[in-house]
């Protein structure tokens, strides 16, 4: 009897504890997501109260929309520049820093500094450093006979420059993740590999480090991919998609359609594509993690 009432009291308490969170999840996630679905089938625009159901028109429009194709291509070019470099450089840095215990903490701090800093503000600094006439980078490049480069003003270079700034801002983050992965590798594995004759650093890397780092690598690859797809701040501050739409990436286009042109219906459809892609990345990660557990 008293056990029963106690249990009931506990259940009541549980509901009280989850109530605020549940209401907020409903209001901030569930309802908006359902609404985004709904809006994506209409021609809703904030500037007029009249709208109608247009079925899949927004999705059809996407396929014909040059801006959409352009944004996809720009995002892919940017990602193909940013992803491999951010992965490989941070892995190398982590291995090199791991081997130098006495400098580890100071180097970790220096490389991590850009991660905590305000990218919107630092983007202004990069714009000045990359200035085609008086920028420090072109000045130094000129000293060794290179350039001058039009970092942010040329259609062919701007995505490269964006990737460079993102690289700077994210290397420390990936490096710390790799360092955590490296620290978890038992040193007995390296000793065993050394007995097997794998003493050269390259052998050690391919025989022990790389296989043991599998889950960390996957994790870094997936989070970096999502970061790459979310490129926004530097574009908004530095180029607004220019010159001539050459840095208009996917999220920035979605933002423009929704909050500059107020094409809410089309923007909703675009953001669902955006969600679909992020979901795909999350799925890859989940599948990989599951497989890893089975091993």
């Amino acid at each position, binding site marked *: 009897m008293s056990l029963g009432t106690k249990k009931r009291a506990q259940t009541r308490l549980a509901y009280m504890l989850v109530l605020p*969170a549940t209401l907020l*999840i409903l209001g*901030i*996630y569930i309802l908006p997501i359902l609404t985004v679905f709904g809006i994506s089938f209409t021609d809703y625009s904030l500037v007029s109260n009249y709208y109608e159901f247009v079925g899949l028109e927004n999705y059809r429009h996407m396929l014909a929309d040059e801006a959409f194709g352009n944004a996809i291509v720009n995002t892919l070019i940017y990602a193909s520049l940013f992803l491999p470099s951010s992965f490989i450089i941070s892995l190398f840095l982590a291995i090199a820093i791991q081997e130098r215990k006495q400098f580890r903490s100071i180097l970790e701090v220096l*490389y991590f500094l850009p991660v905590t800093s305000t990218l919107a503000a630092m983007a202004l600094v990069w714009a000045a450093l990359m200035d085609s006439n008086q920028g420090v980078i072109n000045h130094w490049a000129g000293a060794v006979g290179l350039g001058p480069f039009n970092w942010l003003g040329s259609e062919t270079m701007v995505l490269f420059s964006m990737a460079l700034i993102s690289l700077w801002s994210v290397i420390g983050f990936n490096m710390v993740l790799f360092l955590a992965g490296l620290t978890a590798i038992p040193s007995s594995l390296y000793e065993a590999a050394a007995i097997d004759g794998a003493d050269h650093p390259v052998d050690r890397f391919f025989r022990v480090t790389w296989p043991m780092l599998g889950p960390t690598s996957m994790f870094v690859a997936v989070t970096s991919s999502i970061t790459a797809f979310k490129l926004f701040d530097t574009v908004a*501050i530095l180029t607004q998609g220019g010159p001539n739409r050459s840095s208009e990436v996917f999220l920035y286009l979605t933002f423009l359609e929704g909050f500059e042109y107020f094409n809410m219906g089309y923007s909703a459809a675009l953001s669902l594509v955006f969600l679909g892609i992020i979901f795909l990345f999350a799925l890859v990660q989940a599948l990989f993690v599951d497989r890893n557990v089975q091993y």
Partner: protein
Amino acid sequence: MSSISLSLRSYAPRSVWSLIGTLFLFLGAWVMVFPFIWMVSSSLKPTDEVYDANFSIIPRTFKGFENYYEVLFNQPYLIYLMNSFLVCCGILIVQLLTAVPAAYALAKLKFRGSSILFGTVIAALTIPINVTSIPIYVALAKTGLLDTYLAMMLPFFISVFAIFLFRQFFRGFPDSIIDAARVDGFSEMEIILRLVLPSAVPAIAAFSVFSFVAHWNDLYWPLIVVTSQDKMTATLSMMQYQSDFDTDYGRTFASATVVTAPMVIAFLFARRLFIRGITMTGVKG
């Protein structure tokens, strides 16, 4: 024995390489830090010196005092900083107040619907603000709440990531202690506040750092809902310079320094906590 001879054999060449490697690491670190050095140095200079490609760290003409005085007292930067601070604090407080109880219930109490709720939390982890921004914006516009502190904080009042993180943490808390406390007549609230919560302080601290940094640096949402100067956040204020708002470049970079400084200084003071707090969010996926 063999390991000693092995290390001796490879000692001589490796130390040279090791030295070169160390030099490269510090060279790389210099590249990482250079934008900050350039920014602070420029914030102390007059305009013409900022864009002198022949860069020197020490200003030839020191204009630091004027630049910072202008930014802090003649421009509304103190208001921007205050806005950022208020919004970040408001978000964090509500996040903790809603996530901690929910996470405890999910971790330690049995109730119908708990697995549905937890499944929803996991699913919501993948949904970024960029996807839900349209309906939330429309709802705020219809209710006349745009350009208010509430609008700036509202989408972040619940952190599904915090629920997930704290739930994992609470699950590790031994049931035997909770049961013993119940037998001793502790109420469930006392158990949460006096036993479980203190043990979760490291997780709460790490999450707080993550939340604060993420919302301090956020540009996307303020850009959408803030329209007036007096609600502008520090990070959003950087948008003003996209169209050469201020042609005094020394002053521009003094304001960039003012906006960046709080997070960087806090990082330098609590390095471990920052690195843990920010990297754990990778879990967010």
